[in-house]
């Protein structure tokens, strides 16, 4: 429990309007977008500067209270849930874009800036920030860094971490560090910035982010391919890559997903096909032309039942937007949606789809699968009801079996959502005791008292 004295100190540090401790304010910060997880904090603070974050950390340290950083709460592994109570540091009021540097091709923003706002702001200057997680309309840039968020364009352009030039970060001891800079090259000492990326708020609280920008592609073309068997779609993806074409986007949706999405967007997606691929190629107009012809050829050879081109930018945008709604749209048909983030080397895609089908049958579950097929990153989602204990047990068994295979193929338990609370057990299976041990030692070096986002990444028995 937090004392009035500590609350007063927080108020003094950041102002009354930036502290809340009413029950109703706290209840609604007990969750993120991960199903079935919640824990109420003791107070929430909305800092508006790096100095304010520093002050909060000092107060929390003195009071022995844990701190959990939070952006928009759109995370999918429970990373921002305050599992041990304490203070939630909500960064959504640090939402200023500080600079767009056209000479160095960088943009600097406070951590709470919404990803899409940043992308749109640089676009106005004729520049391009490629990472586009499905939640870009809500997610914060700080949250993206902390989870190393991916998106629809990773296949060609990479993930959030590939665009981070510099981070300003408040460490658990209250020190502020800035790591990296605008220099293209920087090998001075350990690469702290890479350590902070995907650290899920366990090593420090990021307050400012400088990202790398690139010129936008001059042209693009969006294609839609339909399949009567999802495994064929998987084969198509590896065949396109094998043909030495790197599309910017290669997204997949299976029948269940298509139907849920179509229920919401009503843009005429076919409801009876087994799967579709949404493919986008971009770049120089001549290359786009050449690549799209090649992609269509491969699709036809592999056995797509139908291939079509988006008529215009508007239609292409509509299709990409529809895909971004996939997970939320599945909540239309079931009270709970248990999603995973399994990622395999792309050559194993067809096998992965086959395994998902087999396991869904074995455990008698309805599974909708969608994801970034081009990255080998799939989001099989069990449509379930968290009130049905037996069904939930089967859902977890489904994922246990699936990850066994995924790890066997050299895949990973998380492509882009992080470990958080939801996947702590799987992490140990992937990296082994040695891997966990070194990660814990890093955590300890940054945060010896364990006050920053405790209870995440490492399972209880792994915690010292």
């Amino acid at each position: 429990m937090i004392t009035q004295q500590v609350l007063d100190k927080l108020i003094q540090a950041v102002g009354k309007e930036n502290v809340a401790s009413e029950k109703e304010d706290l209840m609604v910060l007990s969750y993120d977008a991960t199903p079935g997880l919640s824990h109420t904090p003791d107070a929430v603070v909305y800092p508006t500067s790096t100095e304010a974050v520093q002050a909060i950390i000092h107060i929390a340290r003195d009071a022995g209270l844990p701190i959990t950083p939070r952006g928009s709460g759109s995370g999918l592994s429970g990373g921002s849930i305050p599992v041990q109570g304490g203070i939630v540091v909500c960064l959504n009021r640090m939402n200023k874009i500080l600079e767009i540097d056209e000479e160095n091709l960088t943009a600097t923003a406070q951590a709470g800036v919404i990803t899409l706002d940043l992308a749109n702001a640089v676009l106005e200057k004729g520049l391009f920030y490629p990472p586009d997680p499905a939640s870009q309309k809500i997610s914060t840039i700080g949250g993206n860094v902390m989870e190393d968020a991916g998106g629809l364009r990773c296949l060609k352009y990479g993930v959030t971490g590939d665009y981070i030039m510099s981070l300003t970060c408040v460490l658990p001891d209250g020190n502020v560090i800035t790591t990296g800079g605008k220099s293209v090259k920087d090998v001075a000492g350990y690469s702290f910035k890479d350590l902070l990326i995907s650290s899920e708020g366990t090593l420090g609280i990021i307050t400012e982010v400088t990202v790398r920008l690139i010129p936008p592609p001059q042209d693009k073309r969006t294609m839609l391919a339909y399949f009567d068997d999802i495994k064929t779609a998987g084969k198509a993806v590896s065949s396109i890559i094998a043909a030495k074409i790197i599309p910017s986007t290669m997204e997949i949706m299976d029948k269940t997903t298509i139907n849920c999405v179509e229920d919401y967007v009503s843009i005429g997606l076919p409801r009876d096909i087994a799967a579709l691929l949404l493919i986008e190629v971009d770049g120089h107009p001549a290359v786009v032309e050449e690549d799209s012809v090649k992609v269509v050829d491969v699709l036809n050879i592999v056995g797509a039942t139908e291939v079509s081109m988006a008529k215009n930018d508007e239609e292409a945008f509509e299709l990409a937007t529809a895909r971004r709604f996939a997970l939320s749209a599945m909540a239309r048909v079931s009270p709970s949606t248990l999603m995973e983030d399994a990622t395999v080397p792309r050559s194993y895609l067809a096998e992965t789809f086959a395994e998902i089908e087999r396991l869904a049958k074995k455990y008698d579950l309805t599974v909708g699968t969608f994801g970034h097929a081009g990255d080998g990153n799939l989001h099989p989602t069990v449509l379930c009801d968290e009130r049905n204990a037996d069904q939930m047990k089967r859902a977890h068994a489904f994922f246990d079996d699936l990850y066994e295979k995924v790890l066997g193929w050299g895949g990973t338990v998380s492509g882009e959502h992080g470990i958080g609370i939801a996947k702590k057990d799987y992490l140990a299976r992937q990296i082994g005791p040695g891997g966990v041990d070194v990660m814990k030692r890093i955590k300890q070096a940054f945060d010896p008292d364990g006050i920053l986002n405790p209870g995440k990444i490492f399972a209880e028995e792994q915690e010292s």
Partner: protein
Amino acid sequence: MPEEIKLGNFTVKDAPKYEDILQCMRCGFCLPTCPTFSLTGRERSSPRGRVALARAVSEGRLEFNQVMKEEAFFCLDCRACTTACPSGVQAGSLMEICRAQASQQQPLPKWQAAFRDFVLKKMLPNPNLLETSMLPARLYQQLGIQWLVRHSKILKMGPEWINKAEGMMPSLQQPLRQQLPELSPARGEKRGTVAFFLGCVMTLMYAEVSRQTVKVLNHQGFDVITPKAQKCCGAPHMTEGDRETTRQLAKHNLDLFMELDVDAIVTDCAGCGAALKEYEELLAEREDQRKLEKFHHRIKDISEFVAEVGIRTEGLKPVNKVVTYHEPCHLCHAQGISKQPREVIKAIPGVEFREMKEANWCCGSAATFSLKFTEDSQKILDRKLNNVKDTDADVLITSNPGCHLQLAWGLREAKMRQPVQHLSELLGEATPD
């Protein structure tokens, strides 16, 4: 009986369904579309937060307390979150239900309740009483504004809203309901017959707009029947959480209009249209489902109707204006009608249409919100006015009296040059007399 089971700390009467609450998977897609979250940055004032609070009440983790009531009424009921929600969560409807819960669980002191009942149960449902006097002072009382004066203390309203209420009043004309003939005949080749649902605010404050609506419909080739016995659609009652009176009004209007042999029931008030389309759900347990469905399908906003039958452009005079369009929440979000008004506007000869930024963002009117939360409403309005300014249009078009009042007042206060016109007025200008 299963419906007698109490859901957590909700009362049995007019309780939300637990399944509807569970539908929210907390993805947060609603957050950037919510004007009150944008204002406060406070999760409890967001659709996701409000649904989470309702879930806590339904699971017995939270009493239906003052905060729940505050959030139910602070919600603009603009339904932008409904449009934005891929999971199909109806956070706006849920808050409307919570308003009904508030009136049961957080009752007003006796004299205030009596006055509220007088306005909602006696004045508004009775068109004759509503129209008896045209003195502005009486009108204030009839529209419940005086009720708000008397509530100003408990609603924590400052004195500034009284000025605003006065400033918002348009110049009054004779109420239209008494003047419109029961049947206005089609002109040119007849295409059909429609009934006209004439909203209370339209007949009292915007008589000229609705006169244009009828003229437009006639010119488009439709006989227009305006039943004199029609009553308030019930939206004000729904908004204030009085669902029982809403049901009575709904039943009256349903029976009255379903007796008519018409192709459609047209309204030029987005708020009324949204309410009429909700009768199906509101009366689901009391009326024949097929009758309700039929009624629902007949209800058409004027722009929806004209776009659907195809606008007849022969004989239209050019209107040489640059226009921009503000989407009423109760049209675009509550009814999903967004393309049609633009289609109609663009079809008018001479008109140059200029899209504004955030056209579907609330203007801050939201029934009595603009008077209860003057400061917040002003901030939402300013955002809208800036977007209007950027278009440099000659006219701002909208199609709902609440928005019309708020926007006209705002533009005047900001000394901007644009007049506000209802879409019917613009189309009426092009239509020969």
